[in-house]
């Protein structure tokens, strides 16, 4: 009973954990680079959800403090942190997408299996080239 009550009062945090693990699963198991980035984004979202929830207050108003308003107000700090976090996440995601575009241009695929094949093929080509021109 007590466990259920604790879980219920912390349900927001538990959902964030579930989301975090879902993202981690996608990041770790997917062979597709774009899906890995999506997994990373799901993890990021879960952390933002968690942090913003720490600033929540039951029956509280947004922290727009007009004179004379008694509150209670949500904590402004987590909002500011998450805003910064989101900007960082956008930056990382866009860089990841551009890198994926370059990987695709160079290896012809965004699937790790196919990239590994293409790398192996490239290695043998490079080696035969080296043998062919050992005295350049």
């Amino acid at each position: 009973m007590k466990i259920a009550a604790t879980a219920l009062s912390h349900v927001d945090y538990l959902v964030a954990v579930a989301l975090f693990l879902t993202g981690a699963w996608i990041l770790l198991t997917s062979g597709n680079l774009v899906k890995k980035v999506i997994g990373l984004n799901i993890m990021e979202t879960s952390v933002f959800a968690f942090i913003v929830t720490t600033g929540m207050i039951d029956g509280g108003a947004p922290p727009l403090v007009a004179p004379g308003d008694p509150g209670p107000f949500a904590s402004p700090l987590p909002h500011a942190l998450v805003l910064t976090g989101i900007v960082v996440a956008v930056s990382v995601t866009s860089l990841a997408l551009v890198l994926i575009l370059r990987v695709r241009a160079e290896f012809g695929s965004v699937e790790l299996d196919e990239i590994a094949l293409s790398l192996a093929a490239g290695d043998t080509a490079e080696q035969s080239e080296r043998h062919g021109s050992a005295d350049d």
Partner: protein
Amino acid sequence: MIEWSHWLPILAMLPLVGGALTPLLFRHRPAAACFWAVSVASVTSVVAIALLLRLVDSGGFSYAVGGWLPQYGIELRMDEVGAFAVPASLLVLLSLVFSRHYVARAVDASRVSFYYALVLINLGGLNGFLVTGDLFNLFVFMEIFSVSAYALVATAREPIASLAALKYLLLGAASSLLVLFSVGVVFAMTGTLNLEDAAAALALSSPMPAGLALAGLATGFAVKAALFPVHFWLPDAHAAAPAPVSAVLSALVVKAGIVGVLRTLELFGGAESLLQPLLHLVVWLGALGALGGALMALVQRDIKLMLAYSTVANIGYIFIGLGLATASAVSGAMVHAVNHAVIKSALFLAAGAMIHRTGLRNIDDLRGLGRRMPVTAFGMAFTLIALSGAPPMAGFTGKWQIALGALQAGHPSLVAVLVIAGIVVLAFGIRVINALYFRPPARVAVASATEAPASMWLPVLMLTIASLALGLAGTPMLEFVGPAAQSIYGTLP
């Protein structure tokens, strides 16, 4: 007092704003961009040295950004760990000088200004990370140097660089998330983000959620520092990057992970029951990393991959020292972080000069280069011996102190690990030296090679001299970091 501390935020702002201005002012003038970047890094180095002198002179000081009380605003502070900004600024300066000719060939002309901008921003992020006293600010500066580092790896033209950078990015971003998550946990538990405040509050708190934050921070920073078994992103990224970038990454960016661990230890210094199991784990992971990294380095054919694996080994040494938690081991680890930075950047720059001149990167292909590129080859040979920990050079101080600490802590087996790893390092050092000096050239590119331009050999030579000088200055360095080691861990045996 006030006038001095204003320079603390400038230490970070100067390279950041200077970096942002680089593509605005010098997009079509690569040579001017290089000159500008070198100037900005020089001024930053001067600021860093001035702050260090102030620190030595009258002890640590802090700065309230915006004039707010520490909890409400952001506190920056200069302490012995923050003093790492001096080697960081100087090493970036030398790498920038080295970049002048290297980058002209390795990067498209239209993108050279972006390259210099990213290196400067990387330095700014590192400096801010080193001097901040605020948990979330730590995360922000970490992201600045991380995002620029991912991009710098990918500025290399080789196809593999984009894949290596992507791998680095995915792991780096996931580890940053662990750190951010832990920041959230600490905030939920204490309601503050100031490191000192939070440390005081955490010392009184219940073990479990605090343990979560500790695990998150430790894992996140361990990935950034490439501790075994989360090191696997490092060799590809450091080998694929342009040589001056490899130098900055191996010398400084992975050390930022170490600094992150030190800050974490500071945060949990009061919660000893949590810290002890973690420190034990870190010692043995470090030992595995030291052995495994050295052995992997031994079997590499590519010289930059060899150096990258040797970084994994040295990070292992440093973590052994941090985990042993005795006064001599911890100060040894902190000193080794600086010494390894100097040695490894010399090695990467020397390797870069050789690759620049010959286009070859296999150790066997570089045979006989010692006569053709005397200064560069001498720098590489000398620093390889320094890397193995031979006295009186820079690699010795830290390893000796860590070994002493292992004996004090009652782990003689760790001394064996250190000795074996040292022998392996010496073995691959001798392999390279043998190839450079005692074998005839096998390649036309080697036989016709000439010494690299002064902008390349001069930084290598200066770092080589520094790797001897820092070895001779071992005792003052240990005395300098001693108090910091004590204050981070609370008290040390």
